């Protein structure tokens, strides 16, 4: 299934009164739903435990409570831009050390292979390189913030 096939299918479906269309083919799956009411989330995130009143430690606590909707959130980046995602779990650093300058700033133009940032994991500094020439549109994470696998670090425009 390529984009063209999908376009055809979408067009076909939207010209009828079909409200739901699912197509699975091996590990490919296409779901089209139209009109109203998605099924509500069956299992909301549990309420905070009222018994435990220990203060939350000051450590970074990423993405605890509000879980996204049940469908796998394939976040779409802002139109026309691409995301550079974290390939590992770790801590995001914009510069090799606190004394030195940031690798990139918003607006920077970077060449393919140029270092964008560091993700520290298990005391190792993993340099993240640009895979193509691009302009940094937005730096999504704060310096020293914890990042999960697959989280967006930068929004870039391919050049």
């Amino acid at each position, binding site marked *: 299934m390529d984009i063209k096939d999908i376009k055809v299918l979408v067009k076909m479906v939207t010209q009828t009164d079909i409200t739901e269309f699912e197509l699975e083919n091996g590990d490919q799956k296409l779901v089209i739903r139209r009109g109203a009411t998605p099924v509500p989330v*069956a299992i909301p995130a549990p309420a905070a435990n009222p018994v435990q009143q220990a203060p939350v430690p000051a450590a970074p606590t990423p*993405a*605890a409570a509000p879980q996204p909707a049940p469908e*796998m959130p394939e976040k779409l980046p802002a139109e026309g831009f691409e995301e550079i995602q974290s390939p590992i779990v*770790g*801590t995001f650093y914009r510069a090799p050390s606190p004394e030195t300058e940031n690798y990139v700033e918003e607006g920077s133009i970077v060449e393919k292979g140029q270092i964008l940032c560091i993700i520290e994991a298990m005391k190792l500094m993993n340099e993240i390189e640009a895979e193509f020439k691009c302009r940094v549109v937005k730096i999504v994470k704060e310096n020293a913030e914890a990042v999960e696998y697959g989280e967006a670090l930068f929004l870039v425009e391919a050049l």
Partner: protein
Amino acid sequence: MFHKILVANRGEIALRVIRACKELGIRTVAVHSTVDSESLHVKLADESICIGPAPSIDSYLNIKAIISAAEVTDADGIHPGYGFLAENAEFAEICANCGITFIGPTPENMRLMGDKIRARQTVTEAGVPILPGTKDAVSSIDQAKQVAAEIGYPVIIKATAGGGGRGMKVVHSPASLPNAFAAARSEAKAGFGNPEVYIEKFCENPRHVEIQILADQHGNVIHLGERDCSIQRRHQKLLEEAPCPVLSPELREKMGACAVAAAKAVGYSSVGTMEFLLDRHHNFYFMEMNTRVQVEHPVTEMVTGIDIIKEQIRSAAGLKLRYEQADIVISGHAIECRINAEHPFKFTPSPGRIDGYHPPGGLGVRVDSAVYDQYTVLPHYDSMVAKLIVHADNRDEAIQRMARALDEYIIGGIRTTIMLHQRIMGNKEFREGTVDTSFMEKLVL
């Protein structure tokens, strides 16, 4: 005590650990792969962190990602559950190097018990019986006679290069040894290109009986009695119960003492299980030790009233055991049925979206499951969707209770092994408690 534990697992065991932590007032971190973001362990933990893509090797087996997740969330303990990294000594070592407590035994214990030959040696020295025999080749009929006489008939002749039952000969008396020996050698030559054979004690259709161990870092070791896990399919346990229907209190004490002695001999300091074969004559032979919590630990919890996961966490925190051997009373009978997302008789996997979910309830019924209505059972991981456990005054009542709980259990949209367990509950041999590890092969479905 720990202030925050990262659970390096998924599914029901992750949930089991999170529940124990909540009850102990310890904060929890769930880790998950990209496809697991809607899993119950993620929803119920205090924090969650995505550690990699769907393949386990890149997520739940990704040591670097897990340690890194513990570091960024400031967890001071990691619980590995079972499977994945639970018996990975290197992982336990890396945890220690990073100043994070691995909730399990020492890396040395894991390595020792993970090496089958060293494990056999170690427990033998502690006085634990193992299946007699030699793994060395037996080359002459005279030597064969001598070996067989030493270990006692019946014996089994196996090809050293063999496997899968080919080239095996069971010999019940000295008279039939010469022919069998010659036949085994020629079959071995024909089948594997190597005529070498070895001789072992033959244990026909044994029961699988295992002893649960609880140990602390202060040298205290107790056992919580046994579990009978004879109902297996291709070495995959399907149903477990405690106590074993054929174990006398004397034999329980003897097997328990062996297990404790072996654990003490190696300085074991966490929960663990010694697996034994029990033959028809009630001889038992050590098979291996599992240096982790097991899937079937709930049946022991139900008959002893002890929360094994809480004790494991307390032990890892350096606390002393709260129980002595004399405190342990086996009360009533418990059965666990593993509910897998599989065709109930063909055992083909049946992942997919659960449409309609209602677990059974009432007295003596426990459900350990991480699924819920509209949850999608993923094809990437284990097919077990729930453990249904019942407890009752005695085995007959436990079977009746399990039958009624299975009847109540609704898991729509996918195929499950509920119907298989319903058949087992109605099986005469099972109800009489006379099953052994060949039960599933013989079961007419």
